[in-house]
């Protein structure tokens, strides 16, 4: 990363025009990603954005860096493999709540546990947007707007931050699509954190969940410093309303693999040694 800011956020846009619905929160995440990259003066050639499948997972195509639009729920597997093989790269994985907590839920838990030095951004709109509005693991129990669950899914939604903490994530923050500048700052910190950093973004789906525009009035920014104590963080994540933004928890621990292969080592197997 350079010390001097040489690029503006717009310089990190690929020129591919997003086809998201106007007003989709994922636009804001795109905005924050390019701002974080500009703020850190990131080198496009050393940065890789990896995603799964979903509206949210289209984001890497819109950024002028390397990118990999992967398989549904498998963005984290690809991102971790890449980082282990090429530790000198900055790797940012991303996707939706369906991608990350349903089909990719197992990868999520193990990525938190393994602690490879990557960033993971989940754009949580509490719905499967791309497939036209089915319930996801974070959908409220009584959300009855989908023809598949006309009386609501009837099951408790996940608490992503609590899950991440229990699985061992050392850095947990929450952002909101209504505040892309705060999100960009959090993302920059996530990228700089040496370990697995999980950024949970409340990102509205204006088309299937228009009621999410009400989030603006509920979201509140955390004023206190990030928690370092796991027990305190567990209490917070189990009992909060899920609308507190900011850096919530941070406790550094050794990353995986224990001894990373030196950059550009032609022997790729070195990075997989246990």
């Amino acid at each position, binding site marked *: 990363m350079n010390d001097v800011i040489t690029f503006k956020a717009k310089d990190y846009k690929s020129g591919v025009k997003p086809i998201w619905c106007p007003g989709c929160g994922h636009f804001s995440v795109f905005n924050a990603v390019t701002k974080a990259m500009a703020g850190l003066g990131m080198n496009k050639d050393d940065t890789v954005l990896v995603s799964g499948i979903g509206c949210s997972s289209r984001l890497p195509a819109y950024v002028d860096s390397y990118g990999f639009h992967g398989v549904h729920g498998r963005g984290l597997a690809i991102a971790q493999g890449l980082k282990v093989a090429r530790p000198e790269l900055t790797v940012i994985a991303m996707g939706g709540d369906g991608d990350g907590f349903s089909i990719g839920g197992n990868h999520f838990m193990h990525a938190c546990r393994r602690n490879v030095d990557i960033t993971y951004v989940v754009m949580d709109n509490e719905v499967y947007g791309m497939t036209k*509005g089915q319930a996801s693991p974070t959908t409220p129990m009584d959300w009855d707007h989908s023809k598949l669950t006309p009386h609501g899914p009837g099951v408790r939604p996940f608490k992503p931050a609590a899950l991440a903490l229990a699985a061992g994530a050392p850095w947990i923050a929450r952002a909101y699509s209504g505040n892309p500048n705060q999100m960009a700052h959090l993302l920059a910190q996530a990228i700089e954190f040496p370990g697995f950093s999980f950024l949970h973004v409340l990102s509205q789906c204006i088309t299937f969940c228009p009621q999410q525009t009400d989030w603006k009035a509920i979201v509140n920014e955390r004023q206190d410093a990030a928690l370092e104590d796991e027990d305190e963080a567990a209490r917070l994540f189990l009992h909060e309303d899920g609308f507190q933004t900011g850096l919530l928890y941070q406790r550094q621990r050794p990353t995986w693999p224990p001894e990373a292969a030196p950059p550009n080592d032609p022997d790729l197997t070195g990075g997989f040694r246990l």
Partner: protein
Amino acid sequence: MTQTDLAAFLAHSVELESEARERYLELADAMRAHHNTEVADFFMRMAHESGLHLEEVAQIAAENALPDLKPWEFDWPGEESPETASYEAIHYRLSLRQAIQLALENELAAQAFYASFAQSSADATTAELAAQFAHEESQHAAQLSVMLKELPPDDAHHREDDDDPHMPE
């Protein structure tokens, strides 16, 4: 930011105008992709106007060494720069009237931002420039108000969709 600092004021002005332009361009493209052509054309026109204002501000700013602020270091009255349409206010079925109304609110927010500098800055050059920018924003706002007056009221059904994404209530 100290309100007497000309360089900081200019850095904010450049960012404000360039963010407004970028957002209007993004909205125009998004509306076109969703076949809302008249709103797409209107946002494109707003992007063009923000671009003209940006050129003017950038020319003045070029004579000064501006601080290198990171995108999150700008000191805005709200979450985003004042002339930027917030994502919560946007929908693919936005009518032209609603789009103009939104743009009008953006112009007024920018005017208020510049006017606050004009009133509070102890530095004469900053105050003078800020007053000039505020005046320009108020002229844009007046033009949009005229456009609004000339438009017929919205059809009550403009938000209906043959393939509504929602369960009937």
